[in-house]
Structures are given as structure tokens and as C-alpha cells.
């Protein structure tokens, strides 16, 4: 059995292998389809409040050190210490240099299907921090993207529209 605690280190080995085989993006979409079963109906039905509720549970279950702030048209998910990348780095096998890509890889298609707009600030591949801004208003999402793009490297800021 792979203990739940060690799944991310397995995930990390999957990323390394699929990267060499050129199959990472396709795999992220498979994970996104799996996550749809947990999240999509909730996100579609409840919008930002549904995303908020989901991440409050994730924060608890995965021991995340994160701030979750819900405003009228924006949900901010500020990951201060990501337990996933932290484990991938605290690992005798070493972290995949692409480890962080899996989160936006599965979540951005899901937000698109839910009719939500995401600006994803990865904050680097070796820093266990990131910040997501989720909007239900495209104009506000574009403003945030433009604002961040002026100060961050373009490959660090992702969006889903």
C-alpha cells in the first residue's frame, strides 16, 4: 500500500516518468476528469462559495497552511506552505522540476467548465507557495492578470481564458 501520506511522492515519480514520455498534459486532463466527480457540480451550482467550501476541506485534510478569502466576485487562495511540494522536496528521490504544474494542470480546465475565471500565480517551482485568484467576472479577472503580468515572469502567471 502507498500510504496517503506518501501519495505525492508517488505522484512526483509519475510526473518524472510521463515528462520523459511526453505525456504530462494528457495526464493532467485525466486527473481533471477525476476531480470533476468531486468538484464540478458544486462549483457550477454554488460558484465561488462552492470553491471556497471545497478548499476549506482541502486545507483541513491536506494540512495546508493557507489563507482563503472570499469577497463578492473574487476568491483568493493563498498557499503559504504547500504540503504537497514540501513533501516532494523532502524526498530522497528529489522533486520533479515540473512538480507544481499539476495543480493548474487539473484545476484550470475545471474552472473553465464551471464558468469561473482563474489567475494562477505559481511563485516558482521550488518555492512551496502559490496564489490563485478565482473570479466570477471576466473583466475583474483580466484586470488582475494584467496587473500581475507587469511584475512577474510570464510563465509564472497562468489563466484559463
Amino acid at each position, binding site marked *: 500500500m502507498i500510504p*496517503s*501520506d506518501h501519495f505525492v511522492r508517488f505522484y512526483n515519480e509519475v510526473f518524472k516518468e510521463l515528462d520523459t514520455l511526453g505525456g504530462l498534459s494528457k495526464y493532467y486532463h485525466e486527473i481533471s476528469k477525476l476531480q470533476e466527480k468531486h468538484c464540478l457540480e458544486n462549483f457550477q451550482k454554488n460558484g465561488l462559495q462552492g470553491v471556497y467550501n471545497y478548499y476549506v476541506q482541502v486545507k483541513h*485534510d491536506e494540512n495546508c497552511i493557507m489563507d482563503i478569502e472570499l469577497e463578492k466576485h473574487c476568491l483568493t487562495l493563498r498557499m503559504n506552505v504547500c504540503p504537497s511540494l514540501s513533501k516532494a522536496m523532502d524526498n530522497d*528521490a528529489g522533486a520533479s522540476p515540473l512538480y507544481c504544474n499539476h495543480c493548474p494542470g487539473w484545476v484550470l480546465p475545471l474552472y473553465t467548465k464551471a464558468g469561473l475565471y482563474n489567475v494562477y500565480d505559481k511563485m516558482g517551482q521550488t518555492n512551496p507557495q502559490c496564489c490563485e485568484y478565482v473570479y466570477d467576472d471576466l473583466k475583474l479577472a483580466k484586470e488582475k492578470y494584467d496587473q500581475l503580468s507587469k511584475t512577474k515572469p510570464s510563465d509564472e502567471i497562468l489563466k484559463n481564458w
Partner: protein
Amino acid sequence: MLRYHETGELAKDFHGTLNTTIDYIIKNYGQDTLKKIFDNMGQKVYKSIHTKLLNDDPSELIEHIAYFFNREGADFDLNIKTNEIILTVRQCPAIAALNKMGFPVSPHFCLSTIYLNNAICEGTQWKTETTKTGKGSCIQRFYKEANK
């Protein structure tokens, strides 16, 4: 002493992601690719356990099994003899989690145990065999060749 010793909440949803990933890898890349990933898991991620077995020291393997099967709430016995370790799993916590989530258990799911145990033991004096005894139950045996 355990190299990895997590505490806090458990995210059992990850058993679902493992289940999906096993099927996905086999369908798209074949069983050899899955085995390669578990080889890396067994010998690189669990380098500390593997290295100790290379030196004929199963202490971390025993501690790992006891700690994580207890942490996952498994129904199991761990019987330790000279040159033999027998793990009797009456209810696998991973399969119990899949059942609870309503996910069909992959017919290949137990390869995660078989490949991982084989990888941890590969090249050492210790051998391993896993015998399924039911849906979500098995006996995992680690032994030195003389005890076969």
C-alpha cells in the same frame, strides 16, 4: 527510525487518484512503465528502507508498515519472526477508502503493493510475496531465502 514520519490529518482521497493513475498508466503506457515508476518509488523514495535491507536490516521496513497501517486505520496483524515478517491485512485501508468514495477498484490496484514490495527488496537478501485472500485482504510476506 523512519525517514518519513507524517502526522496530522490524512487525505484518503489520494487513494482514488492512485487508483485512477494505475489504470491510466497501464492503458496508455503499459505495465512495464507502471513497474518502472514503482521501482523508483521503492528504491529512490524509500531509499532508506531499501538501503537498510541491502545491509540485512529490516527495522525500518517493520517500523514503516506498523506506523502507516496503524495511521490509516487498517485491520491487520504484523508477525515478526527471525528472518521473516508476515503482514496479514484483513481490511486494506486503501481499498476501504475507494469503496467509501464509490470508486470501482482497479483490477490492477494491488500491483501498487506487489511492485513496491518487490522494488524495496530487489537486490537484497530479502524476498517478498503477496497473496490476495479476498477483496481488500492479503498476506504480505518478507523473508530471507533460507526461510522460503
